[in-house]
């Protein structure tokens, strides 16, 4: 049986990994994954939460180094496609200032069956969080702010909150 071209290549004109400073629209992104051979879609949305580690969070700020975030993201998606037989896999990550409830990251995968869609989606979000050069700064209700995962990054700073 002939395997469609689209099984091995991203859709024309669509990047598999993108950074954007505009609101993420998961519905529109999901439509990019439609494929006649797809019987399953799995999506993940990461949202901005109002609390972290006992701190009341007002908003979040994402910084990235785009050239390497893109190249590393492309590697992650290529790995997911190699591990799991999926049709399409995309990821979009926000940059800039985000408010509570906004979508910070979206991952979508379409495949013939559900198992590989779930597995590839999980693999992509897990790797994106630990490998891409993206940093988040939490702005707290008390006026302080702090870079996530950077408790020991600045020797002179308060353990988890750096004054503005």
């Amino acid at each position, binding site marked *: 049986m002939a395997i469609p071209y689209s099984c091995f290549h991203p859709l024309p004109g669509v990047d598999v990994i993108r950074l954007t400073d505009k609101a993420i629209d998961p519905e529109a992104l999901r439509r990019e994954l439609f494929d006649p051979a797809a019987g399953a879609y799995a999506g993940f949305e*990461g949202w901005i939460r109002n609390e972290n580690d006992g701190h009341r969070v007002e908003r979040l700020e*994402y*910084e*990235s*180094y785009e*050239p*390497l975030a893109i*190249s*590393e993201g492309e590697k992650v998606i290529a790995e997911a496609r190699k591990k799991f037989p999926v049709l399409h896999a995309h990821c979009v*990550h926000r940059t800039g200032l985000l408010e509570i409830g906004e979508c*910070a*990251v979206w991952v979508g995968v379409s495949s013939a069956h559900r198992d590989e869609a779930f597995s590839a989606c999980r693999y992509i*979000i897990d790797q*994106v*969080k*630990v*490998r*891409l*050069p*993206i*940093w*988040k*700064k939490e702005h707290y209700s008390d006026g302080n702010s702090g*870079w*996530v*995962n*950077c408790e*020991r*990054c*600045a*020797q*002179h*700073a308060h353990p988890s909150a*750096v004054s503005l």
Partner: protein
Amino acid sequence: MSKSITVRYFAIFREHAGLDEETVSLDVQTAGDVFEQLKDRHGSSEPLGHCKVAINDEMADWKTVINDGDTVLLFPPVAGG
């Protein structure tokens, strides 16, 4: 022998250093040496393993040898998603 290296700081490292980028002259062998010698700049006491480094826009590791003229990007622990 000292090497001329362009260093770029990101996120909390940039805030601590007070600048995005600078060219420094350092007597170093590896990317890890650059991190150690610039501690006063980036201010980090994180273990090297928690941070990442890229050289000339390619992800690298801390044992990578630094050449004269390289651009070294110092990344604090990442936190995407």
